[in-house]
């Protein structure tokens, strides 16, 4: 509304890469990973990511990934130190040593606490690392959220969901999304998320009621609603995102993926990955004025521990 016609421009990301190229990268990755009995895994992951990012184009320019295999490797070591060793020690106390039962119970509780805090730490760490190693037109992204607020969101989300028999869940999703997005930056400009849990309540209740009746298929429509809602309430400056994905399209994507993978015994995995990325971009647009002149570099370089953990659960290149 208002402003010259150029300001209501619709922009879309696109993926230029091909499944065949990714397969070539993957097979060499596998060869070296096997040959080094797994050590190469971190460098393999970096190679794949670098390819996927640099084949993503927006407004005529490609993204770039600046991470290194060494950083991922060090991150994994740190994760082992901070989580692995305490968990192991607590386990030994609980099961193998001959100590007072009270101490064993304490060790058990501590283990659960350490285990539960793993997820928000992994999420925040991974996001912070990945965004800080991503750039477009030379400007780096960044994530400035901290782990403690997310941990609180997770804990309160779990407790409240239990108490409300699950009805709190949409509110939890929105709170999580708000945290993840509104602390994400491109240069010095922040992303913004303005959703409300109440808006997701209706699709969620519908999903809970209909999914058992439709043998689980309705889940695709719920996933599409959620994606449309999340993107639709995400803004960057004066522009806002829009997703037009539908449940039917999602179902079609997954069904064909499953067929392809089954017929090729999983070997066509790189083509499936490219299909998924193509699909994600096809339904995603950015509408409105994009004042890139204002944006300045404000790169942040955090530690890479969280990435090592989330490496085990692949959360993917995904701003949502």
């Amino acid at each position, binding site marked *: 509304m208002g402003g010259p016609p150029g300001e209501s421009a619709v922009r879309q990301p696109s993926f*230029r*890469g*091909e499944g065949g*190229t990714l*397969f*070539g990268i*993957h*097979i*060499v990755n*596998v*060869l070296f*990973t*096997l*040959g080094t*009995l*797994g050590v190469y*895994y971190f460098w393999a992951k970096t190679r794949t990511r670098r*390819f996927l990012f*640099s*084949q993503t184009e927006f407004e005529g*320019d*490609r993204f*770039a990934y600046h991470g290194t295999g060494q950083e991922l490797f060090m991150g994994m070591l740190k994760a082992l130190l901070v989580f692995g060793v305490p968990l192991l020690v607590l386990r030994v106390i609980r*099961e*193998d040593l001959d100590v007072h039962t009270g101490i064993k119970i304490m060790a058990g509780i501590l283990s659960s606490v350490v285990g539960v805090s793993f997820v928000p730490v992994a999420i925040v760490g991974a996001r912070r690392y990945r965004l800080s190693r991503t750039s477009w037109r*030379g400007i*780096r992204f960044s994530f400035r959220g901290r782990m403690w607020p997310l941990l609180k969101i997770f804990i309160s989300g779990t407790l409240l969901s239990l108490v409300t028999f699950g009805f709190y869940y949409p509110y939890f999703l929105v709170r999580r999304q708000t945290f993840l997005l509104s602390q994400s930056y491109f240069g010095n400009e922040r992303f913004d998320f303005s959703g409300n849990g109440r808006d997701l309540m209706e699709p969620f209740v519908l999903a809970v009621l209909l999914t058992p009746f439709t043998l689980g298929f309705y889940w695709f429509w719920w996933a599409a609603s959620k994606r449309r809602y999340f993107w639709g309430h995400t803004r960057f400056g004066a522009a806002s995102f829009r997703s037009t994905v539908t449940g039917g399209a999602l179902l079609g994507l997954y069904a064909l993926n*499953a067929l392809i*993978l*089954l017929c090729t*015994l*999983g070997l066509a*995995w790189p083509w499936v990955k490219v299909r998924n990325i193509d699909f994600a971009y096809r339904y995603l647009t950015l509408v409105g004025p994009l004042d890139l002149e204002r944006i300045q*570099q404000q*790169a942040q*370089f955090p530690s890479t521990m969280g990435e090592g953990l989330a490496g085990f659960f*692949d959360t993917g290149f995904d701003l949502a």
Partner: protein
Amino acid sequence: MRQGLEVTPAGGRTRLWPYAEVRQTQGSYVGEEVRLERGGRMPEILVVEDLRFLQSLHELAPEFSRRFHNPARRGRRLRLTILAAAGVITLSAAIYLWVIPFLAARVAMQVPVAWEEQLGKSIVTYLAPPAKRCADPKLVAAIDTIVGRLTASAPGSPYTFRVYIVDVPVFNAFAAPGGTVVVFRGLLERTDSPEQLAGVLAHELQHVVQRHSTRAIVQHTSSGLLIAALTGDVTGPLAYGLEAARVLGQLRYSRDAEEEADTEGLKMLLAARVDPAGMIAFFKALDKKSDKESDALKYLSTHPSDRDRMAALTALAAKHPLQPVKLLPEEDWSELRNTCGAAGPAR
């Protein structure tokens, strides 16, 4: 004059980018523009759309050509991919067949006996509860004699060997990690001589000594990692297929373990001067029972077929002729083997 690129932005002054300081970060793949960077963490970036730029670079600055991708060599990529695929297949097979068993055996040997005993304790308590163990003193003494003779040939073992007979009419026996062997009454009553029981015990004791259960745990984890490395992160229906592959793979390892238990068990009998004919006769009887087992089932089985086992053991025994010393010569075995059910379980 240093060799490099002269970069002149519109309305700006010319600067020199020495080749030695320039990195190419994009432009190796079809459709990608050439992206050159110079500097540290926040580099200066130059994007060139025309791929022929790379060719020119190679012509003009051949000493630096290693820093830049050569588009003329893209044809090699297909051949390299095929080679890599062949390499992957070979390497995976080698790892599955040799590396994993080798590593698993070594790692299993390092596991402390106390950990194995801990693991075995819960299994034994569940499957052989004290209330169901046969406590007839004559039987217990006889079993102890047999076990004593068998283990005398392996004096330095860190294990405390225990054998329990369980009053359950099942035809089975197993070894728990840590040194405990459980024999069910159903199997005991089918043995015709103490030498036959000794054969079964020797086999099971070798499972303990060779640490097969611990090895299996390591193998299971390693094969999971191997499959993960090959297929990338896979979820959904394909994951089940992979799990089936993993289980089949594990069956091969368990057949290897059984063969090892057979062979080493026979050697244990020979070292204890127990007549191996008993062990062989026992398997012959087993083989007669399962006559209709086909070769296809062999691959689905955790044990090699009884016929194969008998053949292997006969061959091994023939190589080491022996003057055996009879086990329990004063006892009537056909009476002794039935004392479990008759006397009833422990009080």
